[in-house]
């Protein structure tokens, strides 16, 4: 569905937001992981046709989106990061506005979307009085209002309570069955539960790409468990990649990510996605799994 060919985004300052990025994504839910400044948002903005690549091409359903952005825009739902609202509009008016901009004429759709994100009871309240989570849900509703074939959501669960996060994850998973969802987040658990494929970005480039299973497999044997005293823990915490630490009566139970045994007595354990992310970010030089 989306083919990214050697895409780079170079800023006027000379720094690269994205560098020589290539990827082919058919459908499903693509989880985009990476630390701050890795280039996730820049990549998503290029995919959403908000900014153009300096080099390379992006194809959506074999259509070059630089040449024909309208083709993608008419099939796109986009929720940017740190999304704001017009405080003086009501939730229904806000959705009606974006529905009109996206060419959606069906008025029932607005109510459907408000119901989907659980805002139908406050449809006629001005958004200025909404909580951060409610505004985020409204943003999600506007992204979905035109039944997009490609949904790009940048940090969509920020500000949502656990129940809403689960609800939203389920919505994305449902959409991902037939369409393509690109989801960027720092919350690994969001990606873990719904992503069919994961791309890890590092300094503007693709560090790893594959299904969660293949990425997890690559980290097998690289995650270690051990129990250290508090003093020993303080000595190693600065130089080792600690993915988890729990204090218990017998000492600190640690999960460490390292290619070889990092401390004496450490035993390997099954990696989770958080460990895998740490492994790919710090120890792997491979591009794709």
């Amino acid at each position: 569905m989306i083919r990214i060919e050697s895409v780079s985004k170079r800023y006027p300052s000379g720094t690269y937001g994205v560098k020589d990025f290539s990827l082919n994504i058919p459908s499903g839910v693509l989880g985009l992981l990476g630390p701050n400044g890795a280039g996730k948002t820049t990549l998503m903005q290029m995919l959403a046709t908000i900014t153009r690549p300096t080099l390379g091409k992006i194809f959506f359903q074999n259509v070059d989106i630089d040449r024909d952005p309208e083709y993608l825009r008419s099939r796109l739902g986009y929720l940017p990061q740190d999304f704001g609202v017009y405080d003086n509009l009501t939730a229904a008016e806000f959705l009606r506005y974006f529905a009109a901009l996206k060419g959606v004429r069906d008025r029932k759709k607005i109510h459907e979307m408000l119901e989907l994100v659980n805002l139908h009871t406050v449809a006629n309240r001005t958004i200025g009085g909404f909580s951060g989570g409610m505004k985020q849900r409204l943003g999600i509703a506007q992204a979905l209002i035109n039944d997009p074939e490609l949904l790009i959501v940048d940090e969509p669960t920020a500000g949502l309570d656990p129940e809403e996060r689960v609800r939203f994850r389920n919505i994305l998973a449902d959409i991902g069955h037939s369409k393509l969802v690109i989801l960027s987040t720092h919350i690994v658990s969001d990606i873990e539960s719904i992503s069919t494929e994961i791309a890890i970005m590092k300094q503007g480039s693709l560090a790893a790409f594959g299904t969660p299973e293949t990425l997890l497999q690559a980290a097998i044997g690289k995650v270690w468990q051990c129990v250290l005293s508090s003093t020993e823990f303080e000595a190693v915490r600065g130089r080792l990649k600690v993915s988890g630490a729990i204090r218990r009566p017998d000492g600190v139970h640690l999960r460490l990510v390292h290619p070889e045994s990092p401390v004496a007595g450490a035993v390997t354990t099954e990696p989770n996605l958080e460990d895998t992310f740490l492994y790919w970010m710090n120890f792997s030089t491979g591009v794709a799994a």
Partner: protein
Amino acid sequence: MTAGFHRVSAIIAADFRIRFRRASTAVIFVLLCIAAYLWIPDPSTGRALLQMNDQRALYNSPALAMATASLCSILLGFIGYYMVSNSIGRDTRTRTGFIIASTTVRNSEYLAGIFLGNAIFLSVVIFGFMLSCMAMQLIRGEGSLNVFSFFWHYSILLPPMVFFVSGVAVLFESIRWLSGRFGDLVYFFVWMFTLAVVAISSEKMGGVNITSYIDTFSFAFMLDQVKAITHSDSLSIGSSSYDQKLPPFVFGGLKVPLVWLLPRITSTIYPVVFVFAALFFFSRFNPVKVKASHGGFRRNLLSRLNSLIRPLTVPLFALSARFSARPGLVNAILNDALLTLQSYPLTVILFFGFLAATLISSRTGFQSQVLPALFVVLAMSLAGLAVRERRQGTMAMIQSVPFLKPNFIWWKLGTAMFIVLIFITAPLIRLAMFDLSAALSFLIGSVFVATCAVGLGIASSNPKTFMVLFLLFLYVVLNDNGHTPGFDFAGWYGVATPFVQVIYMALSAGMTALAWLSFRYQNEKF
């Protein structure tokens, strides 16, 4: 209905709702009612709205409609820009612009929607003003109310201004370096220039001439027609005294002769060119360009100059580290003042420029040129001072500092005064050497500007309010050229009386009270 029309109307409708649900719009309507009341004085007081050769016009509908529409054209032609030039900026700030950019909305549709949204907003404001003027005719009770006459005069005099302001706002918002405070200042000169060119050419050439085709404020048309009807050059619009011994004359109203038809149509539609020009500059919320122009705030021409100059002023700012380490209101004031100068290093260079100008300029040049220029720079430096925290979202952090919350107003006033003091010390000394009374006025005027910046900034949460009102006031003061002591607020002309000085001191106290009350009210909502 085509898809494009549907999208444009959605943009207009959303814009309309957003603007008309703001408290500031209600304030605008109240101010317009007050303006109508002040502009149409009771003739028994010796003052009247429209006069010719000291003879007042009878308050019938054509006279009131023509005079108030002309005043509205000039005033709203200036203020209107600041009222509407925030639509694209609003979409950028809320990041809804990114969503809009990802839809099928064409740039032309978006800009057309913004342009028409601006025009509709201004038209509704004008409509409100017109109703106020009609009400004033009923109150003043001279001649029966002719609603059609009001509609006729407002429709032949105001559309060019409405489209001009809407078009320039769209164009300036689309051009990166004109989309910020620099653009606000540039518009002031555009407005003055447009007004002056048409007024001068109509006075010198008369009739329909080349500038009649860009008669944005309908000045040339109105003057020409009044002259044709009354056969007199002497026309005064605005509340002023008249000769009560002379009987009032009856003004029958304006007509649009055939020769004026094309100039009126051209004047109305030529601002559409600005929207077409905006298409070339509009970045469609491209984050690379938005980052460059907003990066927290806007990176316009001034920001670029500031960036270039910043290295030169670094030693001065090492001082701020000293103050920031110590708690206390005085240190907070010094730190805030240095932060303001640090944000705009250009002002530091200008300070040295003013210092040099103070020392080398002639006495006349110093008083009538250097001092007004100094106040323009002061206004620009102080405009954002009181609203900085609220607009940057750091208000909660500032309020968590123990002594700043209860002393916020004094903190901001202290900072404003400190910056003012840096700039005025040398000119004040020079002025005091040859005119003590003017020096006192200068000091009072400086305090007046500082309190206005803080008071209006906090009351409106918008730096534009102060900028607009101050620039308008400056225009009046400069045009008056020292003829009226009441306008010599800062000793530029040396004609202010002690009473005038007391009035400006009282106004400064009023502005401080406004700041204090507004902050208290806003904090109750917090």
